[in-house]
């Protein structure tokens, strides 16, 4: 009862691909500069993001902290307006909705966001049962008694006992219980697109797997499109079809998750996978091999490629930000690196101490 066998990528590819439900194009987001006039507020939190999510697909988002992952999620549900680019949901540009149209779209509950910080996003005065029922009330879905049933069923799905927690308030729950209440709230309306910002970071492995299985089931049964932001690469590897890797406001690489994690084409992705705690892989690079060698002159701040200042193989061409491009050596992948895949060869020269495997 408790296990799920996920589709193999080959099988997934054999299925004819439906049109994307979410299509993000050239999206940039900038927060207003802070009052005190520091230089931080001026920079864009997200730049030129391109992302497509199909019904029934799970897309993972990983990357540096502060790189714009939550910002993308907030833009998609209309909490922050794009500075440039489009966000299409089922063919409509929702980034351009204003006023009543925007409110109506948000009330419909078709796109739901599970926030990264449940304590800040859940109303402290409502009970758990009220919190989960609220989106149903707003969308005007179901009859009174059906709502009640839906609330109990949603809590049950995330592994919480409706009897035991239904009357409690967010402060009276543990961190992982709160996280699951947020998820129960988001799935109550049966959305078409679910954006989960760190949905399992506060959960023990068993509950983590329960939630991941649930997301996997929802995408199969309801053809739900799911985006999961996570730092835990191994939990994404078990469930996502594709992954997008963020660094400093840009998507630096995206593609099929196994391929990206096992054969990173961007040096930042390589640093990320190499730093994951004790991943059982023999021939992988060590994090120190993926940092600039000691004595390398510092790369000028804010020049060219966002990763150049930490890149072990940055060279003259990197003074220009590379656009995401298809690379022949890694089919089905978009990589924003002048030297995608090939940087590995340079690495060997610049780090002669690399152990021969």
């Amino acid at each position: 009862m408790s296990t799920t066998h996920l589709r193999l990528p080959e099988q997934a590819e054999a299925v004819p691909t439906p049109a994307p439900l979410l299509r993000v194009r050239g999206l940039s987001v900038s927060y207003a500069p802070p009052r005190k006039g520091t230089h931080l507020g001026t920079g864009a939190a997200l730049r030129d993001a391109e992302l497509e999510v199909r019904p029934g697909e799970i897309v993972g988002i990983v990357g540096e902290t502060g790189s714009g992952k939550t910002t993308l999620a907030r833009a998609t549900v209309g909490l922050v307006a794009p500075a440039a680019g489009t966000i299409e949901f089922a063919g409509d540009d929702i980034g351009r909705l204003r006023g009543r149209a925007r409110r109506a779209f948000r009330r419909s509950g078709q796109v739901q966001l599970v926030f990264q910080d449940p304590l800040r996003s859940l109303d402290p005065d409502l009970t758990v049962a009220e919190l989960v029922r609220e989106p149903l009330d707003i969308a005007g879905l179901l009859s009174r008694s059906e709502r009640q049933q839906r609330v109990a069923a949603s809590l049950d799905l995330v592994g919480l006992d409706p009897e035991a927690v239904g009357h409690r308030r967010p402060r009276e729950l543990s961190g992982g219980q709160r996280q699951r209440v947020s998820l129960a709230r988001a799935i109550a309306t049966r959305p078409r697109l679910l954006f989960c910002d760190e949905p399992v970071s506060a959960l023990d492995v068993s509950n983590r797997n329960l939630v991941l299985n649930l997301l996997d089931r929802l995408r199969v049964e309801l053809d739900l499109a799911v985006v999961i932001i996570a730092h835990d690469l191994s939990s994404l590897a078990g469930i996502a079809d594709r992954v997008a890797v963020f660094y400093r406001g840009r998507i630096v690489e995206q593609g099929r998750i196994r391929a990206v994690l096992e054969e990173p084409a961007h040096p930042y992705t390589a640093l990320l996978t190499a730093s994951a705690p004790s991943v059982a892989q023999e021939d992988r690079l060590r994090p120190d091999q993926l940092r600039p060698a000691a004595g390398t002159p510092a790369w000028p701040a804010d020049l060219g490629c966002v990763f150049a200042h930490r890149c072990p193989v940055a060279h003259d061409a990197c003074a220009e930000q590379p656009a995401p491009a298809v690379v022949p050596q890694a089919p089905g992948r978009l990589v924003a690196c002048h030297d995608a895949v090939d940087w590995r060869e340079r690495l060997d020269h610049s780090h002669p101490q690399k152990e021969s495997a």
Partner: protein
Amino acid sequence: MSSLREEPSTLEVSDLQISVADGLVAVQDVSFQIRRGESVGLVGESGSGKTLTCRAALGLLPAGGRVDAGRIVLGDGPEAVELTGARRSTWDGVRASRIGAVFQDPASYLNPSLTVGHQLAEQLRVKRGLRRREAHARTVELFAEVGLHDPAGVFHQYPHQLSGGMLQRVLIAIAISCEPELLIADEATTALDVVIQAEILALLRGLRATHGLSLLLVTHDLAVVAESCERILVMYGGQIVESGPTDQVLGDPQHPYTRALMGVATIGDWGRRRLDVIPGQPPAAGERLPGCRFAPRCGYAEAACLTGPVPVTDLGAGRTSRCVRTSASLAEAVPA
């Protein structure tokens, strides 16, 4: 590791019992010790009482929560302070100065109307007596140490302007700023990418070596415990069910809950395509059970497990397990 036995005690918790609203007992019979420079991992099911245990050691239980029984002693010998029932003035000398803390929900521990730099600088002025300029400089230095880009710029930002991981690093900087003896880190690296997480764990290892910092690390990431903690405590249903040296407990778990947990764990395994769960649900906080709290979900349960409370068994070599079965009878039994 044996040399640690001679190190003085930094924190000793004995027979701790905590109740929350309406007198529900959420944590019971919890005892453990952390020695100078030692790093102890605290793991366990969501809702098992990890955060409440940490908060009790800081005198910061939620409204309605109280320590019903037990002792929490900070330090050893003449510097030892009994924290249970301590007065406000005692806590003022302990929090931040002697025990640093990073909590699960960073935003709720910061003042939303003050810049994050101001909040850390203020603490350095009050607790360490630094002058305004020194406090500012040290704050920027600490922000850089925890890997924040543009630390001077972050100084002037308000909490809501920072991402989850940036806030978490601000909290880590605040927690280590007064060079405490003990750092209680409740899910302190969960919002961080693995590159920064590795850097923060290395920073803490450094502080342990140079300052003899002791660490209580609450985490769900068993790979992090395996890498960073000498000893591990496993909690279930408000009790510590197993404890011992990390490699031994993870390599050869003795308590059926730890076994079940290891059975579903995927420590850094990317090839894994099955996501197993432990069937059933844990007891609710305060739920009274005559016997073992894991019994309803345990594949090894026998009659003795259901009738009376199960005491902690000393397994030798620094290991304990709260289970009626010994490792021999576990090996014989086929889990149901």
